[in-house]
């Protein structure tokens, strides 16, 4: 058959195939842009860090300044999780992490890097990097399998699934990120007495 005929034939049969319709993607895109901006914000310069340290020293010298110090502490998350590999039994635990801190969960040859980042009063972003740590044919021992990221509500269970090329679920992480209350931050400030 001539190519022109083939082309006409496929023009005709493909005319009936509708495009797949997505839902409105803008809310997620908008959120992704905000997250990207936060991540790409330049780190503080030496001078800024120095100034900030000086500011803390000044605050410390003011009586009743403990609230100010408390506000400067990074948020802490205590997240109950369960990890399920394929159809195996889920492994459960609790992950304590500071805002934006990367923590690791191991399950056999799989390694999960979990980052819980505060978004606002109600929401957090859970970013996962799933690695296979067995030896690969090319000699490497750490291959990134998937890098999903989801928006989750604080105190509510969120689920992240990793699927294989056939769409079959191979990995599932369930997590309930809970922000620790300000009362959970405890500490004392003792005066240093010379000669003691």
């Amino acid at each position, binding site marked *: 058959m001539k190519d022109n005929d083939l082309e006409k034939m496929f023009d005709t049969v493909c005319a009936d195939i509708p495009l797949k319709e997505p*839902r409105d*993607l*803008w809310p997620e895109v908008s959120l992704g842009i905000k997250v990207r901006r936060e991540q790409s914000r330049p780190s503080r310069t030496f001078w800024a860090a120095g100034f900030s340290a000086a500011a803390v020293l000044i605050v410390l010298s003011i009586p009743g300044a403990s609230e100010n110090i408390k506000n400067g502490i990074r948020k802490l998350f205590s997240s109950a999780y369960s990890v399920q590999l*394929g159809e195996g039994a889920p492994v459960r635990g609790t992950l304590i992490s500071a805002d934006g801190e990367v923590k690791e969960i191991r399950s056999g040859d799989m390694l999960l890097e979990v980052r819980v980042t505060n978004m606002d009063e109600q929401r957090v972003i859970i970013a996962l990097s799933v690695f296979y740590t067995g030896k690969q044919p090319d000699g490497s021992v750490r291959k990134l399998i998937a890098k999903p990221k989801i928006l989750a509500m604080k105190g509510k269970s969120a689920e992240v699934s990793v699927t294989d090329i056939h769409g079959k679920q191979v990995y599932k992480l369930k997590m309930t990120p809970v922000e620790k209350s300000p009362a959970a931050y405890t500490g004392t400030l003792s005066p240093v007495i010379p000669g003691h």
Partner: protein
Amino acid sequence: MDETDETDPQIVGRVLSGETDAFKLLVNRHQRLLYDLSFRLTGNTTEAEDITQTAFVKMFSGLSSYKRELAFKNWAYTITLNIARNRLKRKALLRFLPLGIFSPKNGEDEVRVQEPVEAGSSPDARLDTKDMRSSLESAIAALPEELKTSFILYHLHKNPVKDISETLGISPNAVNIRIYKARERLAKKLTPEYPEYFR
């Protein structure tokens, strides 16, 4: 539907001058094609949504590097394709991991393309046309990635060869060859079952 008659480069100009919310217009205008391409490459609605969203975020971040003499759509296609290809490579890796759970179970077949429920199809729609269309979509899904991409961009998204060449970074002649090979394979596969359509 589009809410504006502005061209893509004009909208890009507005976003770059600080009207970041104008980027929503670009998302609304192009999400359907990019999602459709991502879905046909991955066969998974969640994955396709994630790829499309990631692509838009990447476009936003790299908007200052977008050359306005090129079509925004082609640039958007290129970014989406790169993300989709990287995802497919990662997913393909799962097949080689020494874990039994990554192999399909007995009876489970290879590529599964989810078919979203078709809105508005009348009950008396011709079943054979539907069957043929479904078989054609499955056959397209089973094509090698590079043939599949060229075929989709040409026959389903109705892009001219010149634009596909710009998107894929290959010559127009190479695009034509890929589309030709795709047509040949599809016709060979579908003619025995649907001779009335593929003659």
